[in-house]
């Protein structure tokens, strides 16, 4: 299945969904040369935003990834919760995270995100590199550790570039 991350992000943006891009793709947009196969976002869990998000998920034909053949769709109660929903959409895998790290929500992360132009007149909120590194350090899984060295060095190079 071809991944169209830009189309997925555009659909969220154009429908007014409040979200912050986190995870590997946030690392890529911050300049880290890493591979990632899905889009991870933390969304605002207000009733209005959950309704907007649900409409986008329907348009993207989103189903739970664990058993895609059963075509189980997330409902509003899933989207209002603090847990993680691993979905498969027509544009590739999408992970919806109610909270990350030690229970940090969209509102908590907003001050640690930047408004980033991803082309085509689309601007999205992306988690900053400092916070991304801190979260990966906190999680400490094998996958996170593998990515951590590259994220740390990207942060160093970004700071060096600013003073050069």
């Amino acid at each position, binding site marked *: *299945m*071809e*991944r*169209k*991350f*830009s189309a997925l992000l555009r659909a969220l943006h154009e429908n007014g969904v409040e979200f912050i891009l986190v995870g590997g*793709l946030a690392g*890529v*947009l*911050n*300049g*880290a*040369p890493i*591979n*990632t*196969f899905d889009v991870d976002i933390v969304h605002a869990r207000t009733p209005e935003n959950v309704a907007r998000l649900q409409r986008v998920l329907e348009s993207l034909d989103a189903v739970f990834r664990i058993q895609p053949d059963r075509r189980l769709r997330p409902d509003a109660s899933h989207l209002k919760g603090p847990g993680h929903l691993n979905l498969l959409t027509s544009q590739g895998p999408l992970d919806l995270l109610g909270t990350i790290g030690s229970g940090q929500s969209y509102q908590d992360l907003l001050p640690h995100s930047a408004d*980033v*132009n*991803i*082309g*085509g007149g689309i601007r999205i909120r*992306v988690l900053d590199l400092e916070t991304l590194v801190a979260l990966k350090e906190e999680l400490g899984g094998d996958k996170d550790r593998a990515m951590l*060295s*590259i994220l740390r*060095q*990207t942060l*160093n*190079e*970004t700071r060096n*570039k600013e003073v050069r």
Partner: protein
Amino acid sequence: MAAPNPAPLPDYSDDGVDLSLIRWMLSLTPAERLQFHEQHLNDILAIRELNGGA
């Protein structure tokens, strides 16, 4: 007298990360980074598909 040349930047970090690749990524705009990553990923998936999804 000409200023001494600054020391060349190392290509790799002590833990083996390719710093030249990071510097190249940082020279791109976020939109270009997204476009490159998307193309790269789809190339990998296409190669995997050609090899029976292995």
